[in-house]
């Protein structure tokens, strides 16, 4: 009857989102008067999950799950849910979790609510608040099925420390060959760089930068802040930056603590995609740019003057506050 949570890891290390969904699962378990069981797949240090209120960990260690495989991962969670008689299954909004969740929902005959930003407002009917219309609105969604799958947005619920036993138990799913109809051939991933999904800070730039050759200062600013870099749609359409950096309605969503927009006017589609970020800073020469209406802090000025200054001042700040 416990709440089941999938705590995702990468190269054996839990992602930040794993601790956030564990925190969320603990809140749901409290509301339901039950415990939290996490499923960890090929993760190293499952004891860490105890800090976020996980009572039990089903520890899956399987070579077959070395590469992500949506159906095999969903089958693992399905079997774990059956094992625990779980009625609520919590996943994150990572690319992989969003891929496996719909399959898992079918396996469990469960209603699935994605992009959930807050703890359930009621457990009967089970009601959650989620974003819709690409962050231009929220909707309250009731999940009516017996088993429920909840996908929690990144950086919305936050980390809540708790103590749990995180008692690890080996769990060996039964993985049929038929699950492996998709085989990973190669992965092209930048290592050692924070991703837009995981970043606390995102530094983003637009056409105001005039050309791809001017991105050095954007990357330097991101380095100083430990931030991910992103860009507006025109910039990715022009091929100045890779598609993977495009944030906005048809690009990646951003839900960072701090979003810095440099030379981005703030088209409605862009603002929708980054609206879930908590604090927004805009740097733009045009005081009439729509972004100023959506931002918390603004600097009217030339990016080529403001950004280098900001880099210098931040370096000083970091040195003094190290």
């Amino acid at each position: 009857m416990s709440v089941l949570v999938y705590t995702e890891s990468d190269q054996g290390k839990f992602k930040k989102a794993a601790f956030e969904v564990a925190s969320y699962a603990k809140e749901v378990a409290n509301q339901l008067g039950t415990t939290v069981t996490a499923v960890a797949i090929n993760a190293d240090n499952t004891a860490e999950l105890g800090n976020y209120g996980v009572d039990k960990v089903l520890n899956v260690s399987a070579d077959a799950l070395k590469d992500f495989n949506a159906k095999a991962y969903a089958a693992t969670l399905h079997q774990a849910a059956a094992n625990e008689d779980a009625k609520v299954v919590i996943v994150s909004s990572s690319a992989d979790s969003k891929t496996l969740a719909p399959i898992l929902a079918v396996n469990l005959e469960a209603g699935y609510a994605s992009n959930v930003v807050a703890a359930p407002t009621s457990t009967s009917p089970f009601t959650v608040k989620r974003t819709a219309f690409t962050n231009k609105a929220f909707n309250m969604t009731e999940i009516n099925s017996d088993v429920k799958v909840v996908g929690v947005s990144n950086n919305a619920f936050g980390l809540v420390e708790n103590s749990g036993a995180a008692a690890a138990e080996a769990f060996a799913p039964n993985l049929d060959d038929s699950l492996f109809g998709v085989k990973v051939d190669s992965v092209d991933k930048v290592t050692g760089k924070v991703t837009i999904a995981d970043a606390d800070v995102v530094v983003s730039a637009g056409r105001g930068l005039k050309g791809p050759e001017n991105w050095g200062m954007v990357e330097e600013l991101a380095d100083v802040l430990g931030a991910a870099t992103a860009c507006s749609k025109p910039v990715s359409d022009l091929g100045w930056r890779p598609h993977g950096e495009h944030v906005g309605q048809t690009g990646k969503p951003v839900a960072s603590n701090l979003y810095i927009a440099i030379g981005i006017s703030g088209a409605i589609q862009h603002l929708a995609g980054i609206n879930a970020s908590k604090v927004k800073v805009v740097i733009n020469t045009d005081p009439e740019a729509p972004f100023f209406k959506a931002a918390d802090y603004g600097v009217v000025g030339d990016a080529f003057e403001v950004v280098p200054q900001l880099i210098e001042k931040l370096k000083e700040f970091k040195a003094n506050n190290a």
Partner: protein
Amino acid sequence: MKILVCISHVPDTTSKINFTEGDTKFDTNGVQFVINPNDEFGLTRAMWFKEKQGASVDVVNVGGAETEPTLRKALAIGADKAIRVNAEATDGFFVAKQLAAVVKDGGYDLVIAGRESIDYNGGMVPGMLAELTSANFINNCISLEVEGTAATAMREIDGGKETSKTALPLVIAGQKGLVEESDLRIPNMRGIMMARKKPLTVIDAIDTAQETSAVKFEKPAPKGAVKLVDAGNIDELIDLLHNEAKVI
């Protein structure tokens, strides 16, 4: 190869979002509806398979009669025929079950959907459809090649890309990158004229449960005014971010 492209009928990306009937319904007043952008990338890729590999391309939508102009637009872009499942699309699982019935009935080899609709942003229909039809599934698909029954697909992952080998039957959830923005097609007059004569079949929905329901909508709280910092006083910005916003 028989391709089915799933088309969502969504408000244009520039639409102002408002609600009506006590914030329980989306206010369609004055709203321009379009093919969901993620689906349009998929439809454009499907046209490539049609023109280069002789595939047939059907389009499907789960929705009321008001969605037909959007299906006609897909026909004008070049799809062969359209199917509308006559039901209101609210719960993703419900929609996926409707589409699964269409896929099984039509014997499609490849189903192309978008990674999410830009209205409900559920992001669940393609994955559910793949599971319900025992097809392989590629989410966030940014490249797809098919030779015979073998397929090579690339998907966007957090921080990079992943290339996989798979096979038909296959469901992909496409997004920008599957084709470039500049590849998108605006229907020409000939396409629009031909679309009027192409079949648009309306079928009844199968009877199945709504597992979720959107009971109420709300808009984000209005934002306070922006605090402007002088370009010559970046120290103040850092001070605000550190002491007031507490984000650095």
